C-alpha cells in the first residue's frame, strides 16, 4: 500500500514534470493581492483589471500562454505576503511576481526576489524607495512622491494654501506621501502647521478627534493621506460632518483620497476636494474610454475601475509585451527585468514608461477637482497637468531614496 502510493506519487511527479516541459511557452505569473480582510476591495480592483487584460489579450501572445497563480497578500504588514511570495517562487516556480497592494509586502519580499532572481513588477505599492531594494524590482504604479511632491508647489501657488495641516495613516507610504508633500510645499514657501499620524492601516479609526484638532488650528488646507479603501470613505464623512469646508479648510491629497469606485458613495462632502493623481475614470483619452467600456461590459455599470486598476492593467500589458519580446522564455530573470526597463505604452493613464535607471514609473500627474456632473453623478475635473513626472525622491536623494 505504502509502496504503491509512493510509486503513484513518483509517476504523478514525472507526469507533471513532463507536462511542464511540454509547455515551455507558458509563463507562470505569481499574483499577490489582498483577497481577504479589511482591504480585500483593493485586491479586487486590481484582480479585475488583471483578469480583464488577460481575457482580452491572450490571443496577442499566441502560441505562448500565461498562467496566473493568485495568492492572498493578507493584512498590510508584509508577513503573509513574504510567506506566499516565497512559496510562489519555490513551490509554484513562478517566473515573475506582480500585484502588491501594500508597501510592506514588497519590502518584505525584496531580499527573496534578489536571491531567487525572479523579477517583481509592482502594480500598486507606492513607498518611494522600494525599487532601490532589489535590482529585480520594477514598478508601473507610482511612487508616493509622484503625486505628492508636485502637489506641494501646486497647493501653495494655485490652490492658495498658505498654511497646511498634514494628516496621514501611520505606515511607510503615509510618511512618504506627507514627507514628499512637505518637501515640495516648503520649497514653494508654504508653512506646515500640524502633522498628525492617524493610527495603523489595519483599522479605520474614528477620524473626528484628529480632524477636530485640525479644525481648531484652522489652517487654509489639510493634506490627507490614507489607504484608498474604507479609510478614504471615513475621511470624507468626518470632513463633511465637522463642517470643515464651511469653516474654510480645503481638503487636498493624493488620488488615494477619492478612488473612483467609492466616489459615488462619498456624497456632497467630497465636492471641491482637490487631489493630485495619474488616473481618474474621467480622464479623456481613447485608451481610457476603451478601458472603461470593457470594464463595464465585464463587471456591470455600477463597477468602476480606479487608479489601482489602471496600474494593474498597464502592468499586465508590460508583462505581455515582454512575453512577446522574449518569445515566452522567462527562465532568465535578468533578461526579463532588462526587457522591462525602458518599456513604455500609452494606456488608460496616458503615456507611461519604466525609467531604465531607477526601474520606476514615469507618468503624467493631474490636479483634479471633485464636482457634480450634469447627470447628477460625482466626477473629477482636470484642472492642470504636470507631464511625465519622475520620482523626485530619488532625484533629490532624500533619506532611503539615496541608497
Amino acid at each position: 500500500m505504502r509502496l504503491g502510493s509512493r510509486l503513484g506519487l513518483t509517476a504523478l511527479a514525472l507526469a507533471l514534470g513532463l507536462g511542464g516541459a511540454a509547455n515551455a511557452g507558458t509563463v507562470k505569473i505569481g499574483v499577490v493581492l489582498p483577497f481577504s480582510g479589511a482591504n480585500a476591495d483593493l485586491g479586487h480592483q486590481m484582480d479585475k483589471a488583471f483578469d480583464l487584460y488577460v481575457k482580452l489579450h491572450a490571443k496577442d501572445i499566441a502560441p505562448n500562454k500565461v498562467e496566473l497563480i493568485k495568492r492572498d497578500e493578507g493584512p498590510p504588514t508584509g508577513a503573509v505576503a513574504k510567506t506566499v511570495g516565497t512559496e510562489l517562487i519555490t513551490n509554484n516556480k513562478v517566473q515573475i511576481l506582480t500585484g502588491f497592494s501594500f508597501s510592506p509586502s514588497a519590502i518584505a519580499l525584496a531580499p527573496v526576489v534578489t536571491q531567487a532572481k525572479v523579477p517583481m513588477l509592482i502594480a500598486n505599492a507606492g513607498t518611494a524607495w522600494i525599487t532601490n531594494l532589489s535590482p529585480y524590482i520594477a514598478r508601473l504604479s507610482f511612487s508616493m512622491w509622484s503625486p505628492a511632491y508636485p502637489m506641494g508647489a501646486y497647493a501653495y501657488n494655485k490652490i492658495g494654501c498658505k498654511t497646511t495641516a498634514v494628516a496621514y495613516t501611520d505606515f511607510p507610504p503615509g510618511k512618504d506621501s506627507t514627507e514628499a508633500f512637505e518637501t515640495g510645499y516648503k520649497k514653494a514657501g508654504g508653512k506646515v502647521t500640524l502633522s498628525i499620524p492617524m493610527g495603523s492601516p489595519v483599522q479605520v479609526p474614528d477620524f473626528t478627534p484628529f480632524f477636530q484638532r485640525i479644525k481648531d488650528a484652522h489652517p487654509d488646507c489639510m493634506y490627507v493621506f490614507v489607504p484608498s479603501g474604507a479609510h478614504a470613505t471615513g475621511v470624507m464623512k468626518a470632513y463633511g460632518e465637522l463642517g470643515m469646508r464651511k469653516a474654510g479648510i480645503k481638503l487636498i491629497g493624493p488620488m488615494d483620497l477619492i478612488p473612483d469606485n467609492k466616489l459615488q458613495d462619498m456624497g456632497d462632502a467630497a465636492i471641491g476636494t482637490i487631489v493630485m493623481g495619474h488616473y481618474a475614470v474621467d480622464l479623456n483619452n481613447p485608451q481610457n474610454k476603451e478601458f472603461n467600456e470593457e470594464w463595464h461590459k465585464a463587471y456591470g455599470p455600477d463597477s468602476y475601475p480606479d487608479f489601482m486598476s489602471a496600474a494593474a492593467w498597464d502592468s499586465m500589458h508590460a508583462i505581455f509585451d515582454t512575453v512577446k519580446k522574449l518569445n515566452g522564455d522567462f527562465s532568465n530573470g535578468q533578461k526579463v527585468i532588462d526587457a522591462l526597463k525602458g518599456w513604455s505604452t500609452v494606456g488608460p493613464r496616458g503615456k507611461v514608461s519604466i525609467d531604465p535607471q531607477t526601474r520606476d514609473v514615469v507618468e503624467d500627474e493631474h490636479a483634479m477637482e471633485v464636482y457634480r456632473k450634469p447627470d447628477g453623478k460625482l466626477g473629477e475635473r482636470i484642472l492642470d497637468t504636470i507631464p511625465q513626472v519622475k520620482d523626485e525622491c530619488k532625484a533629490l536623494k532624500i533619506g532611503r531614496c539615496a541608497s
Partner: protein
Amino acid sequence: MSHAANIVISILFDGLAYAMFLFITSVGLSVTMGLMNFVNLAHGAFAMVGGYIVVSLTRSLGIDFVPALVISAVLVGIISIPFERFLYRRLYKATDLEQVLLTIGLAFMAIATFTYFYGPIPKSVPLPHWLEGDVNLGFRTFPSYRAFLIVVGAVLVTILWYAFERTNIGARIRAAVDNRRMAESVGINVDRLFTLTFAVGSGLAALGGGFAIQLFGLTPYFAVLYLVLFLIVVATGGLGSLKGTLLAALVIGIIDTGGKYMFPQAGNFFVYLVTVVVLLIKPAGFYGRE
C-alpha cells in the same frame, strides 16, 4: 469662549458619541458573557449583519435611515434566536476554547457570505437631511449625527437601566448572573431568560452596526475588526454589568478621543493603558464579581 474650554467640549462631545456607540454594541456581549459564561466572538458579526440590513433597507427599498435602524435591530434579534437555540446551546458547558472556535468560525462564515453578496467595497447609507451637517446649540455647533447618536444612547441607557433594575425580568437576569444554580432552584427558567437577553443583545449590536456605517464605513470585515474594542469594554466594565459596561464605554470613548486629539503620535496607546491599569487594580473590571 476660551480655546481650552472649546477643546474640552470637543473631546467630551466626540468622546461621548463614541462611548455611546461602544455601549450600544457591547452591552449585549457583556450580559451574555456574564449570564452564561459564554464567549461569543460572533457578536461583531451580528452588528455587521445589522449594518448590511440597514444598507439594503435604505438603498433598495427606500426606507428612511431611522426606521431602517429599528427594523434591522428587530430582525437581527429574531435571526439570532435560532443560532442560540441550535448552535450556542450545545456548547454552554463546553470549554472556552470550543466556544471561541465555534463563534469565531461563525464570524468568518458571516464575513465570507456577506463578501459574496455585497462585495468588499465599503458601503454607505443615505442620511435624512436633518442628520447631515450640524446643529447650533447657541454657544457652538455640533455634528447632528453624533448628537443624535448621543440622544439614542442616553434613551437606551435609561430603558435598559429601568428594565434591569426595576422590572421582574431584570431582577431574574441579575439573579441568574449572580448565582445561576440558586436562580434555577427557585424556579427561574434561565434558558429562556438567556434566549431573551441574547436576542436583545444581538439586536442592540445590530443597532450599533447601523450607527457604525456612518462612523467607520461598513465592510464585511466589520465583524471582527472592532471586536477587540468591544471585548476591552466588556472586560474593563465587568461581565454582566450594565453599569460597568456604561462606565467602561465612557472611560474608553473619552480617553481614546482625548488621546487622539492631544497626542496623535501615541496611537491607541491610551486605550490599552487604561485597560491594563483598570484590570491591574480590579481584575474583574469596574463592577465585575471578584
